[in-house]
């Protein structure tokens, strides 16, 4: 689904800080959505913690940087880190080039997969959420 200039695929689940999540077998794949990567500009660094790191819903587990701004990445569910996209170590710009494909960031082994249902999902919900954020940013 295209919401204004932002590509927000319908099938994905979204965390409120604009990270997407999707199921892949027993794991969840996570990355940054199009709205966030456009707002961030050129991404120069993504922290890739060690696999096995425990993730606590809503808590910071990694950092990333664009425009000299070091930001945080929050866990969308409880679980542990199963895999990181090693390619981002040398080429974090993959997130800008292909945020839903080659620019994926982490794979998570969820403690309870059903937690994904608490994320923003479905055309209406995603549209309402993104339009609200577009408006917040436009007010500046």
């Amino acid at each position, binding site marked *: 689904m295209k919401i204004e200039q932002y590509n927000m695929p319908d099938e994905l689940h979204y965390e409120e800080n604009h990270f997407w999540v999707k199921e892949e077998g027993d794991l969840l794949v996570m990355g940054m959505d199009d709205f966030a990567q456009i*707002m*961030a*500009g050129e991404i*120069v*660094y993504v*922290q890739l913690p060690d696999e096995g790191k425990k993730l606590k819903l809503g808590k910071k587990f990694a*950092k990333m*940087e*664009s*425009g*000299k*701004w*070091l*930001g*945080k990445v929050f866990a969308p569910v409880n679980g542990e880190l199963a895999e990181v996209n090693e390619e981002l*170590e*040398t080429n*974090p710009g993959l997130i800008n080039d292909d945020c839903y494909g080659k620019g994926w960031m982490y794979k998570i082994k969820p403690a309870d997969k059903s937690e994904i249902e608490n994320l923003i999902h479905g055309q209406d919900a995603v549209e309402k959420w993104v339009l609200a954020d577009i408006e*917040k*940013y436009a007010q*500046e």
Partner: protein
Amino acid sequence: MKLYNPGKVPWDESQLIYHALAALGREALSLVSPATPYVCIGFHQDAEQEVDLDYCRANHIPVFRRDLGGGAVYLDGEQLFFQLILRKDNPLIPKKKGTFYKKFLQPIINVYRQIGIAAEYKPVNDVIVETRKISGTGAGEIGDCIVFVGNLIVDFNYKMMARVLKVPDEKLRDKVHKTLRENLSTIRRELGEKEAKQWDESSLNGLMAKEFGKLLGPMEPCEKDQELQAKIDDLRARMVNEEWLHQKGKRVAGRDVKIRAGVKVVHKMHKAPGGLIRADYEVREKRFSDVCLSGDFFCFPEEAIKWLESGLEGRPTEEAPDLLKEFYSERDIETPGIGIDDWMMVLKV
């Protein structure tokens, strides 16, 4: 808004104070300057790769990793730091990063203008005079706070800045030094020695406090209290040590030294099947400049490399693949074992 204005402080405290204030969730403006020089790297950087640690050790120059963005810098008492700590939910914080930088760099621009320097904002996060940068910045999220730091540059030791960086050879170091001098200015350079002397540390800090006050509301001067000192001590134990400094940073192929937004010095090497290629150049506003290509590969005719260098000069970096295609198709040039993909390994920025 609390104002901490202790002036000169021990080098590590000039970094630890804002980390501590943020960790305590205290909104504040801190105005400090280090009593002795040190090198400060950005959170994502690899100390070993960015800084000549042997030189720093031998010359008693400490190296510190901050928990904020931006790159490696040589800092000393001729730079006056501003450190703004705001809680994330503060309504004064714009959501867009560009708007944030523009808003909170305005006090610095105003200070420069008041002392007679025609500073301007340059997106995303620079303050410039004509084309020269005159304030360094870094930002990030620490605890529940947004932290924005930067400096007024009274004077700058260009030679030391170029010296403390790790570069593959002296030729590149000279290039970094030259490019720094061209692209980074200071109060002393802009105003001249005599005029600049009118503005001492205390008066410049006073101007910064006044200008930030216009944005943030009345400033309440504060001294370090026990809780803040304890947090500083706690963070010193955690951040002023080899383990914190040497944590894994971003590994990059080659060497990029960012001078200011839009200007960087690049050195890259690539082992192609036909031999080693070395490229040294500057990127200025997304265009190649001062390109030097060398290596141990075979090229016929020999002068073709000079043609490629001059062909790249001044051209947009994104056009490199097209330029390389033209280079090979329009002339009878042979570089056995080296193709366009190999060149792109050193020319992709």
